[in-house]
């Protein structure tokens, strides 16, 4: 580990690795500091991702894919099952352990230096200016100087807070999540199943994402508005004992998913925040891999430019904010509004919508039609939804 770098990336997930890759490719001297002993472990993720999302940045590798997905089933509170085949979309359930690991290798190949077991304990200041980080690396306290510090440190981000940025998630915008990776279950292959309704997961959904024969990630997220009364684990345990009492649990994991607006100000002098830490997550699906990679890429490119131009001021780093704004900010704002509208639907409303959709023949069902049908309950949202699907 060197005493100084141009750019220090805190966190070795997809956001951190993409930041490092693009910053290094564009000429910056970059390091990635990961607090755990392994990149990609422990996994805290349902692991679903779209083909078009990932392949914007990297070529899909066979060993990243646990299952290819070409349809989804939505289950309403009364148990109505709606099969929706994907028209043009292809999805995957990933092996995040391998995926994250390989992304960090890609970053390293681009020239970034990766370190694990580095706990960042605070920022290093000189005359109120951020000049690096204080770390503990394998038991040894160190200081590392950096011209730009990138917070890719996830839902529990502290880099932003140390720099005075508002990365705290409102409890109503935090999903409390629990997941088991289980075997010894019957699971429909190449299909993802989502259960909605207050009995399964209030303010969120329950998912079954297959990962090979008789194996799946089964998890749920519930809104922080409801988790006070009953925890995510309790909801999931009830579902498991009802539906899969014979299942073997190979991994138990929990975590938080911020389904919020992207933070307004993810920059300060010498600071950028990316990925989950900046609430770059699709607020409807909770999918965060693609937006994390995107904000990482954009931060990496802008960061390298800031080094070249010898200007790491907040004013210069606004280029990163503009780049995100031009990419997904508006879309996430609309998706957030849709999430809010969906969360106001009662179980009865959802059952009604499900019955409507059930009358559309399966082969004619598209995600778009399902969505449009749902929106009839909330006509004011039709315009927003149209915008999303037409890309306006």
């Amino acid at each position, binding site marked *: 580990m060197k005493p100084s770098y141009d750019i220090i990336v805190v966190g070795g997930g997809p956001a951190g690795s993409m930041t490092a890759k693009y910053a290094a490719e564009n000429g910056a001297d970059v390091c990635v500091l990961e*607090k*755990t*002993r392994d990149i990609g472990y422990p996994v*805290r993720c349902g692991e679903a991702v779209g083909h078009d999302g990932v392949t914007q940045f990297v070529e899909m590798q066979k060993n990243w894919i646990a299952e290819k997905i070409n349809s989804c089933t939505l289950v309403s509170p009364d148990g109505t099952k709606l099969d929706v085949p994907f028209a043009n979309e292809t999805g995957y359930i990933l092996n995040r352990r391998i995926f994250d690991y390989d992304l960090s290798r890609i970053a390293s190949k681009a020239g970034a230096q990766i370190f694990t*077991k580095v*706990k960042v304990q605070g920022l290093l200041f000189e005359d109120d200016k951020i000049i690096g980080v204080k770390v503990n690396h394998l038991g040894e306290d160190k200081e590392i100087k950096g011209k730009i510090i990138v917070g890719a440190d*996830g*839902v*529990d*981000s*502290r880099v932003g*807070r140390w720099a005075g940025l508002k990365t*705290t*998630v*409102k*409890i109503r915008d*935090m999903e*409390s*999540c*629990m997941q088991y990776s289980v075997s010894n279950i019957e699971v429909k292959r190449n299909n993802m199943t989502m259960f909605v309704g207050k009995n399964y997961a209030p303010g969120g959904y329950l998912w079954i994402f297959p990962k090979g024969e008789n194996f799946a990630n089964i998890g749920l997220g519930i809104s*922080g508005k409801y*988790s*006070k009364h009953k*925890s*995510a*684990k*309790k909801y999931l345990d009830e579902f498991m004992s009802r539906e899969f009492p014979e299942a073997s649990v190979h991994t*138990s*994991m*929990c*975590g*938080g998913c*911020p389904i919020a607006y992207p933070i307004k100000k993810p920059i300060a002098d010498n600071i950028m925040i990316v990925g989950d830490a900046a609430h770059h997550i699709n607020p409807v699906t909770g999918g965060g891999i693609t937006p994390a990679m995107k904000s990482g890429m954009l931060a990496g490119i802008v960061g390298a430019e800031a080094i070249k131009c010898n200007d790491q001021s907040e004013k210069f780093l606004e280029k990163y904010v503009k780049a995100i704004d031009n990419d997904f900010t508006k879309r996430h704002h609309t998706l957030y509004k849709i999430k809010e509208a969906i969360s106001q639907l009662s179980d009865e409303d959802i059952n009604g919508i499900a019955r409507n959709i059930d009358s559309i023949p399966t082969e004619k069902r598209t995600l778009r039609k399902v969505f449009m049908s749902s929106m009839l309950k909330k006509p004011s949202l039709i315009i927003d939804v149209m915008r999303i699907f037409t890309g306006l």
Partner: protein
Amino acid sequence: MINIIENKCDFCGTCVGVCPVNCIDVDESSILIDNNKCIDCDLCVYICPIEVLESINEA
């Protein structure tokens, strides 16, 4: 004051994300709550997916 139930935490950091006063520090295998900074809002108790935290009423 928040009590951490021993050997229960998975160190996922969800509590850190909602803490309004940044008084929780989660590591790969440890969790610390600075009870001097804690304002007893109990948001961390409510959001924890696996019920690791409990509020202790000092009164």
